[in-house]
């Protein structure tokens, strides 16, 4: 939603010099700079940068994602390649190219962690996107329209809530087959429930705000009110919830993998790696600790980022 605004702003800047009431050019230029800096998203960015914990977390997440997706190309071993010379878990060494050692099957641990990271990040993002799309649509419709629409949608949510999560996912997996990407969608289908409730609550409080009334008096249609007035105002909550959902989804995925419903070996994820490592933690604690370190770092960072974003996106808190 930031994009079209920027376009308008550019046009405005262009027009500024034509208007007779902005004769003092130098002054209006100064004012322009001032204005440019004060736009909502830029000022939110500035506040985010000022929040050290959130900023470092964001950088760390980006760094982790970068390493996970680009790193494998620079390693001499791939994640499913077995080093027949080191068929047992071996400690790290620089000489044989296993920088973090190998697992019990002689596969390079670093390569597997990076591959696992790719899967975990993908699951986290895709599943959360699905959850956001459904959750925001359903929640804002229910909250804004109210009445029977609200009743029907929320009863559906209630029914889905009482179906046990695992049962639900297992059914979905059986129906759709064990497709890797379908799993994301399956998880997303579960996660949207809470999302929709949060969005509905927020929308209901917003609906009675005066600025919604004033938009209606200005002739805005319901669609416009939802997209221009409601959704931008709940975006802060949504973003925070997203950053909290991503780690949740990553954890859920690792649990599914543990049950044999998630990624199938030799493909792996952080969760799968941890459960593998847990089985051998008495012999080689390394295979548990290192993936767990990656996972918890990522989860921590997402949480810090979520908090930081919430503070940064609320313009009234200044």
């Amino acid at each position, binding site marked *: 939603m930031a994009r079209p*605004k920027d376009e*308008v*702003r550019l*046009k*405005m800047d262009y*027009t500024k010099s034509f*208007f007779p*009431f*902005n004769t003092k050019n130098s002054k*209006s230029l100064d*004012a322009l700079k*001032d*204005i*440019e800096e*004060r*736009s*909502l998203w830029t000022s939110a960015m500035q506040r985010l940068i000022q929040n050290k914990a959130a900023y470092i977390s964001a950088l760390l997440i980006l760094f982790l994602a970068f390493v996970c997706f680009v790193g494998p190309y620079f390693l001499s071993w791939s994640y499913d390649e077995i080093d027949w010379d080191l068929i047992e878990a071996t400690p790290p060494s620089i000489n044989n190219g296993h920088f973090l050692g190998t697992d019990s099957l002689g596969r390079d641990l670093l390569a597997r962690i990076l591959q696992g990271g790719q899967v975990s990040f993908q699951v986290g993002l895709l599943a959360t996107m699905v959850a956001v799309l459904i959750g925001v649509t359903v929640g804002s419709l229910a909250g804004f329209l109210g009445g029977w629409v609200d009743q029907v949608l929320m009863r559906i949510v209630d029914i889905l809530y009482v179906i046990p999560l695992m049962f639900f996912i297992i059914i979905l997996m059986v129906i759709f087959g064990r497709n890797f990407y379908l799993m994301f969608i399956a998880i997303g289908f579960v996660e949207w429930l809470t999302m929709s409730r949060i969005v509905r609550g927020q929308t209901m409080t917003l609906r009675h*705000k*005066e*600025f919604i*009334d*004033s*938009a*209606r*008096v*200005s*002739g*805005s*249609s319901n669609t*416009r009110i939802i997209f*221009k*007035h409601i959704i*931008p*105002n709940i*975006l802060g909550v949504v973003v925070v919830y997203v950053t909290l959902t991503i780690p949740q989804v990553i954890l859920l995925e690792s649990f599914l993998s543990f049950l044999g419903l998630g990624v199938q070996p030799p493909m792996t994820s952080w969760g799968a790696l941890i459960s593998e490592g847990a089985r051998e933690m008495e012999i080689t604690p390394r295979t548990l600790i290192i993936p767990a370190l990656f996972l918890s770092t990522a989860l921590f960072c997402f949480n810090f980022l979520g908090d930081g974003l919430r503070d940064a996106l609320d*313009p*009234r808190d*200044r």
Partner: protein
Amino acid sequence: MRENLLDVENLTIKYKVKNGNLFFNRYREFKAIDQVSFNIGPSETLGLVGESGCGKSSLARAIVKLVGLDSGKVTWLGKDWTSSHASTDRKFRENLQLVFQDPLASLNPRMTVSEIISEPLENYRKDLSVLEKIELVKKSMETVGLSTSMINRYPHEFSGGQCQRIGIARAIILKPKLIICDEPVSALDVSIQAQVINLLKDLQKRFSIALLFISHDLSVVKHISDRVMVLYLGRIMEIANVNDLFSNPSHPYSQALLSAIPIPDPIREKERKRDNLVGDAPSPIFPPSGCVFRTRCKKSTNICSIKEPREKIVKLGHRVACHHVSDEESK
């Protein structure tokens, strides 16, 4: 015969309140507005005075159809606006704008000033280009005394008075025929109040806009209005020219209101004898029988609790709903 902008006839608004226990939902209906009739002519200011809970805001919201009305008829620009379908509502609203009480709450915190002010344009003037819209926004901002350099700022960066100016800029951008001001100055500081009142008066003169000015403050209403309507528990008590009402209030409630207003002048204020009402206004959910004002009225007699007074015409354009006022017509 002059054409009225807005004709309101026997308008009634009912609300439901929950009145039951844990297992059974019972609802009790009450009338927030009961049989209210008035009209507003072109470029005229009608002041609407009343205490909190008397239905002032409900009335404003019913006129712009933010709340539904239960019976009665609203004629806007000669067309029946009560029975019009939702799809044609938008067309009606073009000439009818609202200015709200809480200046900050009535502006979307996620929109820039230019987006806020141009919102009516986005809805009604889709033919305009982005540049033309921006030009109109700037013109409107200058009219209400805002610096155009603030066009890309967000509402929270403004003070209350400036926010109210933004709200007014949005209301006038389509050059409406009627603006309803719902307590536009009661949330503002005294020195800012005066600025906004001056601004509204000035705009009205320049663009010949009619105003429905709602306030609980009689002195503000006296300053800005041509005619004044006094509301109590959803009923009109008195409606008259501003001079008639303030120099010769006929309804006991109007008299009490007038005497309750403090005068910013210590000698006069300390000397004068106030004629205070007793108690608070009753809840509109359980209004008294007969005349709703009788519980606080000094002139109250038997008939007041039995029969609801009908409006009597004291003078041309001066209507009073009280048993103790003699009817000019019946004489």
